[in-house]
């Protein structure tokens, strides 16, 4: 990465436009041009000033484009050129931005150098674009505020469709005083109107969650692109349809589809009769703000800052489904083999081999089993099929690798160790059998018999058998799952587990266990994938990946990225890296016999990925095949937080080769994102952790070069601590994490309620507070004091110890000093002591000497006492303090700045003698920002950087001289990030600083210092 760091903007994508292989995206005030084939960012254009882009409107000849948003529009010419055989475009800003006197909802080209714009007060303005002049303004009779609108150029007029706050759509022609008609029916605000006059179709979306499809109720012979048509025709609501669980934001009409997107992150595909064809989840539960489509693709922009490309084939070609008709008796269990043929265990005590090419059963092997309780398992390569009954009759078959596929019987034996309760392959050579009394026998084949490799003993539990088994590559270490959700680890030669991981998954037990690269990965029916580290034979819990479906069964690829399972009755295939569902099949649920495979196959000149599912339903064998290229959406721009980011810390690697952002937000996720420019700028979330509620604060402590302690806290009084390591594995930057602490002040729900149901639970009178801010202070080697500022006005102290083999976290005291919510904290070094500052909603600022008064040997004394006192207290702002910064000027002097809800920044200079204030000077500036000041940072040369909800970043300079303390304006700039919650200085030189502001998205920009 070259220095300086380039501009990064990630926020709501509010406008998109498709041009074949090129897509334009409006991200803040910047138009971004992406190549869909390479995913590369080709160009960015600063199209508007201090305003989000809401629309791209190309002229008919595609030589010019209007870029509009808010009260502004600008015009760029489009230069088309060829890159090889691909057409690419370049935008050349030509006009603007022109600032109108009202908000623009829709803009259309009416002539070559003339455009019409619909404003939020139902006025149509016509502008001459070459003269940049307003020609006419046509006011409608109804001038209430519009939430949406649509303009359609007619041959002889402009048709206006206005979506009012009163639930009506008013249609009028620009040149006519009287409205032509109103579309009545919605019960909420109209959020969007789409109109295709050729199809005589109007689609509206609304606050009331519905989509309405309107069409003519009378037959009119005049063409629909004339005013005459609209004067005579009547439209009524043809279909009122519901597909979204939240507000419906936008819609689009293609040749044969209506596409709607909503606040619920769902894309719905409808036919013109209002039948739903497909529903797709697209933007991580964030709102979808914008969409555009052509013949092949749909592109959507969302509240999670992502830009997603969807193949339109998903609506109509979602998989091929077939019932395989074969005489298979009454099938009980089915599995795919290596060559994707099917082995079927039926009720007639037969194992059948179904050849997929021939579409028929080619072999039937009669088994000589005594019990009807049968177990069947396939080795991890799917070549070996083991079938056993409870009595111990075991048969092992193998599918031939070459030539005609057949099933060859390898083993036919009777195991003599009591009732067989479970049987699983571990890898390809070991069969793990669990019999009565927790006896586990690991078998391997020997000739056409089996031999016992080792025996293990499963600890006592109810339903004492196994749910999954895994083996390491050296065949030395086994990991098995039991019916209580525990994972036991055994080493050959030792009967008892060398380690038991308790309650890794829920009561159904782990569904799969994979051991590789010194790690264990388990899946379970509790909606999680868990990772453990096995380095040096010590087992460390690393992380949990939470999926949005309960039943996680197994991985379908070798990289543990594609996982499948069930969401109630629906079979789900999920891509972990892209956090998206690839396939959904309502097959009836996971209790039936089923199997799935993933494979690559050539389709014409290209290779595509396929997922094939088989399952039994009503004793019939169903098969579904999905070509992923036809149905899977792809990120052009990766998403991140779906709601406000409350806290963020950047981490620039020492060689500046990459940048990490650690951020927590209202969407309850803690994300570690990597930014690098190796193959063009890319930003992606490398790790995502969940909290129970919003995350208000993250703090880090550097343990090692690229290893940090990460503490996060927030709602539901929750603190989480992790160790994060930034690694470069085979030139790929990754984040490794070890989760150490997940603590709730009042305990987890389960700890609190036990097994009582909600009815028998008494009311808990104490509220569960929010942790507003947190500090991590190193006390000793591997020993930390964690201070949590809480919304119930209490300052809570915790002692955290961390070393390689153990860690502990325990409460170390509560300080009840403040009377209202503590909003912010800050620590800094002064006189070689750690000083803590706490700030409240009443503008109070208190200074605490951590080293002398709060560290562990002293804390005991303070527990639950009210006598811990700050050494200095003052009141600065009129109300809540939302940002604080402080630093030592000399051994006696401190400067600190606070910014608050009162849009004021207070800068104070204090001279301390033995921690007693002997001199104070202060100044207040309240005209640098017009809203809550949420971020403050001191830089060198007495510079202060501040930011606010008003989306301005201000650089000011303080001076202390004989006249006292002053703070003067230096410069200011605007950020496209709404609802700014703070600022983080990434790096600073003598000329400038690279900073990151965060809120609804984030922006990295350079702030120049004065010369």
């Amino acid at each position, binding site marked *: 990465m070259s220095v300086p760091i380039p501009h990064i903007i990630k926020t709501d994508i509010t406008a998109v436009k498709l041009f074949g292989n090129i897509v334009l995206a409006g991200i803040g005030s910047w138009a971004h041009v992406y190549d869909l084939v390479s995913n590369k960012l080709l160009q960015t254009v600063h199209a508007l000033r201090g305003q989000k882009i809401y629309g791209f409107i190309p002229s008919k000849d595609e030589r010019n484009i209007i870029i509009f948003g808010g009260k502004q529009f600008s015009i760029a010419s489009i230069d088309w050129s060829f890159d090889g055989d691909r057409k690419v475009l370049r935008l050349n800003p030509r006009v603007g931005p022109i600032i109108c006197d009202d908000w623009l909802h829709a803009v259309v080209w009416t002539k070559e150098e003339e455009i019409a714009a619909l404003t939020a007060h139902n006025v149509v303005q016509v502008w001459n674009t070459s003269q940049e002049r307003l020609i006419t303004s046509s006011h409608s009779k109804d001038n209430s*505020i519009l939430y949406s609108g649509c303009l359609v150029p007619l041959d002889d007029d402009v048709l206006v469709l206005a979506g009012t706050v009163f639930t009506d759509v008013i249609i009028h022609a620009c040149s006519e005083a009287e409205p032509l008609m109103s579309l009545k029916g919605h019960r909420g*605000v109209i959020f969007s109107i789409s109109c295709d006059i050729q199809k005589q179709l109007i689609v509206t979306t*609304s606050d*009331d969650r*519905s989509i309405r499809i309107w069409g003519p109720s009378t037959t009119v012979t005049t063409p629909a692109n004339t005013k005459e048509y609209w004067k005579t025709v009547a439209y009524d609501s043809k279909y009122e349809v519901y597909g979204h669980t939240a507000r419906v934001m936008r819609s689009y009409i293609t040749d044969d589809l209506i596409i709607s997107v909503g606040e619920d992150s769902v894309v719905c595909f409808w036919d013109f009769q209002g039948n739903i064809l497909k529903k797709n989840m697209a933007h991580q539960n964030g709102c979808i703000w914008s969409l555009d489509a052509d013949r092949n693709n749909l592109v959507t922009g969302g509240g999670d800052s992502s830009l997603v490309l969807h193949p339109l084939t998903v609506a109509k070609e979602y998989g091929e489904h077939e019932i395989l008709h074969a005489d298979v008796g009454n099938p009980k269990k089915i599995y795919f083999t290596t060559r994707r043929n099917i082995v079927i265990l039926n009720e007639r005590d037969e194992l059948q081999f179904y050849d997929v090419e021939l579409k028929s059963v080619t072999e039937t092997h009669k088994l000589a089993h005594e019990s009807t309780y049968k177990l069947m398992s396939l080795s991890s390569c799917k070549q070996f099929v083991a079938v056993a009954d409870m009595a111990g009759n075991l048969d092992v078959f193998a599918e031939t690798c070459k030539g005609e596929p057949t099933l060859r019987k390898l083993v036919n034996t009777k195991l003599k160790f009591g009732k067989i309760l479970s049987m699983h392959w571990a890898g390809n050579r070991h069969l793990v059998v669990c019999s009565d009394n927790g006896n586990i026998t690991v078998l391997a084949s020997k000739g056409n018999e089996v031999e016992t490799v080792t025996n293990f003993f499963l600890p006592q539990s109810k339903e004492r058998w196994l749910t999954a088994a895994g083996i390491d590559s050296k065949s030395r270490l086994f990991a098995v799952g039991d019916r209580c959700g525990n994972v036991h680890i055994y080493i050959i030669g030792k009967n008892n587990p060398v380690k038991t991981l308790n309650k890794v998954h829920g009561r159904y037990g782990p569904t799969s266990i994979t051991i590789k690269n010194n790690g264990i990965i388990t899946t379970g029916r509790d909606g999680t994938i868990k990772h453990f580290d096995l380095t040096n034979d010590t087992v460390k819990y690393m992380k949990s990946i939470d999926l949005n479906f309960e039943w996680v069964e197994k991985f379908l690829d070798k990289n543990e990225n594609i996982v499948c399972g069930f969401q109630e009755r629906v079979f789900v295939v999920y891509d972990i890296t892209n956090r998206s569902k690839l396939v959904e099949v309502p097959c009836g649920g996971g209790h039936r016999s089923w199997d799935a495979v993933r494979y690559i196959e050539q389709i014409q000149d290209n290779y595509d990925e396929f997922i094939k599912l088989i399952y039994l339903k009503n004793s019939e064998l169903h098969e579904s095949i999905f070509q992923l290229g036809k149905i899977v959406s792809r990120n052009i721009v990766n998403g991140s937080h779906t709601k406000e980011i409350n806290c963020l810390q950047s981490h620039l690697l020492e060689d500046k080769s990459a940048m990490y952002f650690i951020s927590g937000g209202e969407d309850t996720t803690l994300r570690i994102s990597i930014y690098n420019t190796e193959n063009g700028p890319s930003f992606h979330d490398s790790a995502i952790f969940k909290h129970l509620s919003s995350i208000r604060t993250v703090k880090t402590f550097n343990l090692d070069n690229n290893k940090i302690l990460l503490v996060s806290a927030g709602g539901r009084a929750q603190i989480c601590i992790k160790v994060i390591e930034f690694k470069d594995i085979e030139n790929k930057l990754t984040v490794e994490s070890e989760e150490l602490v997940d603590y709730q002040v009042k305990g987890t729900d389960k700890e609190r309620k036990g097994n009582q149901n909600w009815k028998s639970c008494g009311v808990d009178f104490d509220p569960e507070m929010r942790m507003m801010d947190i500090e991590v202070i190193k006390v000793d080697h591997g020993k930390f004091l964690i201070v949590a500022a809480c919304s119930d006005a209490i300052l809570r102290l915790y002692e955290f110890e961390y070393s390689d083999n153990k860690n502990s976290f325990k409460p170390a005291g509560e300080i009840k000093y403040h009377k209202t919510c503590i909003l912010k904290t800050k620590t800094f070094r002064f006189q070689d002591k750690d000083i803590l500052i706490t700030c409240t909603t009443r503008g109070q600022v208190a200074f605490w000497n951590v080293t002398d008064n709060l560290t562990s040997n002293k804390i005991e004394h303070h527990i639950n006492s009210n006598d811990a006192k700050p050494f200095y207290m003052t009141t600065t702002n009129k*109300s809540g303090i939302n940002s604080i910064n402080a630093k030592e000027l000399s051994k006696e002097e401190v400067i600190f700045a606070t910014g608050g809800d009162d849009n004021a920044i207070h800068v104070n200079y204090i001279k301390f003698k033995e921690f007693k204030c002997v001199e104070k000077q202060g100044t207040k500036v309240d005209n640098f920002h017009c809203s809550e000041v949420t971020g403050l940072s001191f830089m060198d040369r007495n510079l202060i950087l501040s930011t606010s909800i*008003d*989306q301005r970043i201000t650089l000011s300079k303080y001076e202390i001289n004989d006249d006292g303390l002053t703070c003067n304006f230096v410069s200011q700039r605007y950020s496209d990030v709404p609802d700014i919650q703070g600022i983080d200085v990434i790096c600073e030189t003598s000329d400038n600083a690279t900073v990151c502001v965060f809120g609804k998205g984030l922006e990295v920009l350079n702030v120049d210092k004065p010369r």
Partner: protein
Amino acid sequence: MGKTSKDKRDIYYRLAKEEGWRARSAFKLLQINEEYNIFDGVLRAVDLCAAPGSWSQVLTKKLRQNSEAEDDVKIVAVDLQAMAPLPGVKQIQGDITKLSTANEIIKEFEGLKADLVVCDGAPDVTGLHDIDEYVQSQLLLAALNITTHVLKNGGVFVAKIFRGKDVTLLYSQLKQFFSFVTVSKPRSSRNSSIEAFVVCQNYQPPDGYVPTMANPLLDHKYCDFNEFTGPNRFIVPFNACGDLSAYDSDTSYSLLLEGQTTYEYREPVQAPINPPYKEILDKTKNIDIRK
């Protein structure tokens, strides 16, 4: 979520139910009054965008003290939506952008003008901050526009404002009509909330200003004395309202407040009337549309 969790999360929500207010916002108006005494001598007041009616409740309670004859006090509440009736409040279900609504208010005051106009209206927020701020500013300007028809010279106007990126444009506009414009945040309004209230005192329209509903008031543009970015931005003074000893809306309090011995759960005073999502709730009562 438990029944009491909202009570725990928000002290003012709970206090509102205990004191019989229809919404917690009642405390905001009370606290603004503590700071500015906006009710002093007020006999005729207008509550714009009044539903569910908590500010009208405050007005009836507070203004009655200003006159011995109860009939002298006149309160008009205007809203697009229906609102459950309140004794002593004349309701007009109408649009504040219509001249007829202004005339109806004047008629109610028997030709006299109002001493005080308040507006706690907020739009349906979309989640896009710039649109929400714009629609809120248009709502405020529509309220200001009707206020210019009904407010007496010297009168007071209080309205909700979103302090977003373009709020200085609104400040400069309000300043054209009022001698004193300040922005206030009552202690009952959350620190994290973008909302604040403008208190505009001493209504003095510009010379020759003729109130008109023909065109909506449009907001200002950035100019030399109110720059988009720079040292010259039009920022009005800020005040925090409400007693320092008042409850703090960001603080988590126990359900048993200091000095209390019992806690009893109370239902909200007034449930929403006919929300836009009503239909879908009815429709999906027995089915799950997520599938």
